[in-house]
């Protein structure tokens, strides 16, 4: 979790640096002053290591790794440290629509899959306990299929992604509340 938050922060930082760069080109920094000034400053300082990039030793970026079904990818394109991509995506009641909030993380999964055709992913579809077991198996499959379709649309190959539905048989939360049900309506990623 910590790593993921960290990465989000870094991404904002880079975007800010990029914006500053553009702004200075246009030599009109007034509008930028209203932006996330402090953060931009500190991040600019931190990433002011362009000198080290110029040094001769070539640092090889880390390769994606599968650990316990999760995929770990370089924190940044050239980073040596890895971070796990989120492998759980949640759904609304009786729905199999991939939520917009998950798109950016799914895009990262798609690009890892697209860049390494040997990667194999199993999507495990799940439902909450309400309704009948067989219907929920179908619902879990719908959800995993929706995620697969999204990944394929973003560049993954269909043959890389297998779908298995467990319906309501493998809850993540054993409770019987709205909160537990929300945790159980999900698709889990398992890289192999």
């Amino acid at each position, binding site marked *: 979790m910590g790593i993921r938050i960290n990465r989000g922060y870094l991404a904002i930082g880079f975007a800010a640096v990029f914006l500053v760069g553009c702004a200075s080109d246009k030599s009109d920094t007034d509008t930028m002053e209203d932006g996330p000034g402090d953060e931009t400053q500190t991040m600019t300082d931190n990433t002011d290591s362009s000198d080290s990039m110029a040094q001769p030793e070539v640092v090889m970026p880390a390769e994606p790794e599968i650990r316990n079904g999760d995929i770990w990818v370089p924190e940044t394109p050239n980073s040596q440290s890895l971070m796990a991509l989120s492998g759980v995506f949640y759904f609304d009641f009786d729905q199999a629509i991939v939520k917009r909030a998950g798109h950016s993380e799914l895009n990262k999964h798609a690009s890892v899959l697209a860049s390494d055709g040997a990667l194999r992913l199993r999507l495990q579809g799940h439902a909450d306990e309400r309704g009948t*077991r*067989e219907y929920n198996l179908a619902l879990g499959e719908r959800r995993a299929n929706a995620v697969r379709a999204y990944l394929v649309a973003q560049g993954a190959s269909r043959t890389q992604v297998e779908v298995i539905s467990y319906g309501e*048989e493998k809850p993540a939360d054993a409770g019987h509340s709205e909160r537990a049900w929300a945790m159980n309506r999900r698709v889990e990623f398992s890289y192999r």
Partner: protein
Amino acid sequence: MKLIKCAGIVIAFVLQVSLVQQVAAELRIEVTEGLDDAVKVAVVPFVWEGRRPLPENLSEIIDADLRLSGRFETTPVDQMLSLPASASEVFPRDWKLLQVEYIIIGRIQAQSDRIQLRFELFNVPRQAVDITQTIEGSIDELRDMAHYASDVIFENLTGIEGAFSTRIMYVTATGPLDDRSFQLNIADADGHRIKTVLQSREPILSATWAPDGNRIAYQSFEKDSRPAIYIADLTTGARQQITDFEGLNGAPAFSPDGKSLAMVLSKDGSPDIYVLDIETRRLRRITRHYGIDTEPSWTPDGKAIIFTSSRGGKPQIYQMTLRDLSIERLTFEGDYNAKASILPDGSGIIMVHRREGIYHIALFDMNRGRISVLTETSLDESPSIAPNGSMLIYATQVNNNGILAAVSVDSRVKFNLPSSEGDVREPAWSPKKRMTFTPISQ
């Protein structure tokens, strides 16, 4: 990714592991709602004419059967004023005082290595014997003999075929969520004699009986956690993997002649109903819709299949005639009707029905087109009808635990079968009696 044609893949499976049996959770019947006008009966302790005590108390088993059916009030032995061993010893006034209407009297004898039970049903108001029967069995069949007697008495008094000799198959899940163990069990209808027929770390579901009561089919995730349908033979212990398709492989249902298996596969895109000829392995796709089609169940004549479909937007019950594959929608009331099965007389459908967000077991009256809710609990599912068509068993949640419960089709009798351990779900009532006896002519 195809039908597994090789009948040679027969894996012996655990029919009765003693270790497993020791830990198998007990089921105990608790009547939650009985008839207000329950008939008062008395099961007098049976006379045993042998020397060593019998391993089972037959009169106690019959007493429990009748009491737990919810239709009878039995009489505690310590209230009985006399303990007749035959109809000729009955003093009717002893029983009229207690307002007992029927007395069950029995005598057990040993005939070399066989046990003979003679039981009588004495009608107090008429002061006459309604039934006398003598049956014979082995020492291992004492419970079967008692359940047989309960069935005979129950049918005589209610006009409904008894279900005390039938069995219940169900799934138990034990252990924490990240380390679950699943068992497929078969118990007598009174919760005794539990046998574990299958154990797995992966879910087991949709277990169903063949009409002969000797085979079962179920879905599990045994090979690399992928779903498949299996058929197991309970007498030989052999089992066969039937399907290995991409996608769903589930909801098996034997046809009334036992020759075909309806199932749900999603190999062609969306969940559809298929019918497999078990002998020839010919597979026929019978529904074709982008919606969810699932939970097939045969009509008693085997000419049609009812199923759940989301083709109208929400799950409803449809009927498909196999001859011409014509489809008719059966339910319109409510926005969630699923997992339907037809009563043996074809008069109605038992199903899961959602009302105000709560999932109940309901009866859909085919003639009047009306739905009546049979259960008051929530999260009710997996109803299964007894072969006599008068009771059904289902799964529900009580105190955050999955338990089995039963209700009569007229909803007047209700009882729970709480388990001593684990989550119990997906009951399936056996279509046949475990054992039956032929009365010996006197």
